[in-house]
């Protein structure tokens, strides 16, 4: 079973998911990400799912939860590169992931993270 690498670039963590996640491995990934945030104190988290072709309700919920947990730790999360088949499935399942930031690709995702983390910083300073 493959592992998901977690990369740290600047103040952001990048998690490119290159394998199909099962329930077990998805839970492990969630733990790993949160541990990593704790260890590095990253401000932004970018999860790239462009290689994932199946996101079921469990994985969808797990991703939303991970974003919420990260938010509690002061980290903004952006989910990037969702495939159109995945989107259609999620819409069918009624999972609109309203409180999750999304972007088309990593480039856009990083730009969005920059504005998001910048905003919180501004807010904190006031």
């Amino acid at each position, binding site marked *: 079973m493959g592992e998901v690498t977690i990369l740290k670039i600047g103040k952001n963590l990048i998690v490119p998911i290159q394998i199909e996640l099962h329930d077990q491995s998805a839970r492990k990934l969630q733990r790993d990400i949160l541990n990593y945030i704790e260890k590095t104190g990253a401000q932004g988290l970018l999860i790239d799912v462009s290689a994932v072709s199946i996101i079921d309700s469990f994985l969808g919920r797990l991703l939303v939860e991970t974003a919420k947990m990260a938010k509690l730790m002061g980290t903004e999360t952006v989910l990037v590169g969702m495939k*159109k088949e995945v989107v259609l499935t999620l819409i069918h399942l009624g999972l609109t992931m309203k409180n999750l930031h999304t972007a088309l690709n990593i480039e856009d995702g990083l730009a969005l993270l920059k504005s998001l983390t910048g905003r919180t910083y501004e807010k904190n300073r006031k």
Partner: protein
Amino acid sequence: MASEKKEIAALLSKYQEEILDAWHRQLIVRSNSLMEIIGLTEAKSFTQGILEHFITLFPLAETENDENKSYREIDDLFSDLSGKMTSQNISPSEIAVFIFSMKEAVFPILQKYIDNKDLSGAIISAGRLIDRFAVNTFEIYLNTREKIISEQQRAFMEISVPVVRVWHRIIMIPLIGMLDSERTQLMMEVMLTALEDTQSKVAILDISGIPVVDTLVARHLITAASAAKLMGAECIITGVRSRIAQTLVQLGVDLGDVVTRTTMSDGLQLALELTGQKIGE
């Protein structure tokens, strides 16, 4: 009964010419306009085919139905007849008259050559078969129509969702006509494909061409918008006229955080702002 039927069939095949003559005479009297359109030679080939099948099918028991080869053959004949007549704008009732006038050709022959005792039985079974023929032609006519309608529907579906690349990273989808769930599904697929292919950041859905926006249509629009959001793109809905705004609020529809604008140009302006672009002064 079966042997009697065979006898009748033999009788009919013996007097085939006579029956056909009577039938043609009937046709000329009763459906003159139809004969003018398809012509006597064409009609003759059909009547002959139908009568031949009638004679082979007549002795068969009524319980033996559609699996029989002869029935399938006559179905082919009828679909040929029906198709030809439909393409020439002949109404189904005229086709029915075409078949029914066969009765007036067959019955006199039966009357002439069968003695009183068996006559009513023979007429009833002959009538039944002819009625069945007429019903068949009608069914085939309906099926042909149905096929045309579904083909047109498919063609309509194919052209119904055009995607326009209005600017760098901005796509626009003009929606026209009724937005039912099937079309919403198609529209979403087309939109997501376009977003993926062009990596566009903004999708503008223009609803100027949708005559009525009710709760259902609104829900479909929200679904499409959240699909675009999941992809990481923004969705702007333009063409919200005053009437639509009024109905939406009166219906208590909450569009959530979907951005809406009245005109396309306002929507485009907003899209340009969102993508950080500017049109030169």
